[in-house]
């Protein structure tokens, strides 16, 4: 479903003066959240990654514990089982916390001429990408994303550092947005560097 800007800041303060010459200003968070189903995607993605790592670690632990390799100190081989266990605890915690945390951080907004995004969870990044500098707009959907009917929108500029990715958009919205951006970029475009 399309996520309305349910927690949107009312656009009343549309042209806020920068807090003066005091040399201090704040960015407000972007207006819109990504689709709530993105949490599912992130969770599953983390889960799959964790399962894969766990299998690898278990194999290693098993090998270290049972294979007759002399060079592994006893202390290590006896406690090798702790490795996968510790990892599962870590992974479970991460799976429980990260997706919803991320959901709270991830926001986006397409202003008149600028795409404004905020991503991250522990660390965050705020990014401003002017629409007239867009070079490509990619709309991608992995299989996992297809299941949840969300999509990733990637906008690229002439600078790799200026590429912005919005994950977990509702797929309909993403498609609409990518078309709109492509059109706008086309009309606004100058040299784009």
């Amino acid at each position, binding site marked *: 479903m399309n996520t309305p800007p349910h927690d949107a800041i009312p656009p009343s303060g549309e042209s806020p003066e920068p807090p003066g010459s005091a*040399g201090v200003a704040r960015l407000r968070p972007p207006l819109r959240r990504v689709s709530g189903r993105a949490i599912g995607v992130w969770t599953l993605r983390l889960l799959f990654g964790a399962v894969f790592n766990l299998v690898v670690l278990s194999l290693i632990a098993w090998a270290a514990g049972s294979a007759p390799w002399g060079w592994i100190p006893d202390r290590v081989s006896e406690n090798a089982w702790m490795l996968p266990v510790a990892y599962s605890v870590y992974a479970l915690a991460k799976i429980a916390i990260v997706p919803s945390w991320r959901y709270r951080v991830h926001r986006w907004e397409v202003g008149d001429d600028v795409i404004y995004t905020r991503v991250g969870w522990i660390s965050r990044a705020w990014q401003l990408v*002017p629409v007239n500098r867009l070079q490509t707009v990619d709309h991608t959907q992995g299989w996992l994303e297809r299941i949840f009917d969300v999509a990733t929108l990637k906008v690229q500029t002439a600078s*790799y550092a200026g590429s912005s990715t919005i994950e977990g958009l509702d797929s309909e919205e993403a498609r609409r947005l990518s078309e709109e951006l492509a059109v706008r970029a086309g009309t606004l475009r100058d040299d784009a560097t």
Partner: protein
Amino acid sequence: MDREHGQHEPDPDRSGPAASEPDAPGDGGAGGWVAPGSTPSGALPEPHTGQWSPPASEPGPGTAPRAPQGRPPHPGHHVPPDGGDRAQGQPSTEGQPRSWWGEDSGGAHAPVVGFGEESAHQLSPRSMVVGPINQLRSLLLPVLAGLVVGGFNPWLLTATGLGVVALLIGGLVTWKTFRYEVGEERIEIRKGLIRRSRRTIPLERVRGVDVTSTLLHRMLGVAVVRIEAAAGSVGDTEDGKLDAVSAEEAERLRRVLLHRKAVLTERGTPQGQGVREERDTGEGEDVRDGGGPGGSGTSGPEGRDGAGSPLPAGAVPTAAQDTDGADDTVTHFTMPGSWYLYGALSIGYLLTPFVVLATLFGMVQQSAGEMATDFFVDWVTTADRAFLVLFGTVSVAVLVLLMPVFAVVSYALTHWGFSLRDRDGSLVAERGLFTRRSVTLEKRRIRGYELLDNPLERTRGAVGLRAIVTGLGDAATRAVLLPVGPRSRVEPVVDRALALFRGPLTRHPRAALYRRLIRSVLPFAGVAAAAAVLDVTWLAVVAGILALLGVPLGVDRYRSLGHGYDGERVSVRSGSLSRSQATVERSAVIGWTWTQTLFQRRSSLADLQVTVGAGKGGYTAMDASLDESVDFAARITPEMVRPFLATDEDGRDRDGDRA
């Protein structure tokens, strides 16, 4: 360049697809004779019907072997001295060079040919040799080692021989199948025998033309031309590379491409009389010598500017770059002799003796293998101890003393005759003694510049200059605009060639200092502590020293942090061991990114990255105050940032929603 066309013009059989063969030796200068535009592959098998076929006619395939034979004398005699001769390719003999010169004047009238239609060119036939030799060179050591280890057994020898032959054939095939064509609006490069490829680069998208020639290239009078194109997608730096055309052709291409491009983009430079003042350093001259005749071709084949100035015949043999009447060559800089000394301040160059030693050692070990090692060990164990110590100290001392010398020498080799010129709306930087490289950067594509220095250079107030250019791969070497020199001399050049950033840099908050210190000290302190616990004394000592050294490093890193805006340009600075201050035009800013880690959040710092569609893609003001940096960005690009600024009340609840 007309010259070229002119030259071919008269030739009746120029149409023959075949000319290829005979041309081999001679055409170099010609930059490839004109192949019928249409037929890349058609040209293949023909024996020469070509114009100036040298008397000795070889069968097609014969060429490859023969070319190499022709060559050896080449490198032998001349390197720089006889530019003209060499450029023509020596075997050519019969009047070819003359025809060049003669044609030169004649050429001016004939340009029309090239104008509307395209004509395909081949690479210089000498590229057939250069390519394989270059490939061989990288394989040389392994092959030699293999041969030595294998005891020169006949199988190996045969295999090696076959390999060499294969390379030569590869070279031949490449040459035979490679065609490029400069049209009105695009350049087209076709190549490949089995898998043919055709790359078309619209001339408006040409961002620069580089001409590089290694010593080998210059011995053969050829050069590599790389056509930098604005790639459609990010990171796609594919461009056109013409691996070895004759030096003249290289020069011609550069002019034609940039000129046409300028015309296409309606930026034709006003018909200024060339300033062409500077005497080049001897070096520059000499190098260009190869290109001399080529450059004299002045006008593009289209002859557009040919009318502007019939070139003085006298100009021909001298520096190519000056002869064109249509451009406006201004020399911003030529390397003063004393500047080579700054090489001694460059850490990279200071380490050269060690690198050389290591390489030598590696080579000895690879080729002589255990014998040398055994010998060395033997010698060490039997020699007198006191003598050994003395020997060791002396050699280390000598090495250390020699470091600056080596540094200066190797620095001089790469920066010899550095010159920066302004021509046709482009900056042309040229340098190098053996490998002469000339980089053309279109000014329109230059978004700013970087000033670079290291602590040693800072003690002498020296600084290097690099351009921030859109779509330039390998910028570390290619965007160098000036060698390291005193800031007082560099800045005026920047001001003339680009525009200097004038303004103070804002210091970053105190918290940034702590972060820098933690970064530079903590890891080593941690290692030292761990080593102390584990009782590894030497490691603890070393790490401890490094941790102590980290203090001044951290402080210096903090002191170099800064960002500023002078109304037109944005500048950010960071780094200590290699400090860089990047300055870009306001209009080049194509976005902003703030990143904030958990630790930065506690002291409300953030890294602000200025996104630029050029250079590294982004330049970061590390550990700036988040609030101040937002204001900074809002001052520079209000239209981009202001809509997203928080008014006072929601600025507060930002934290709430961050949860």
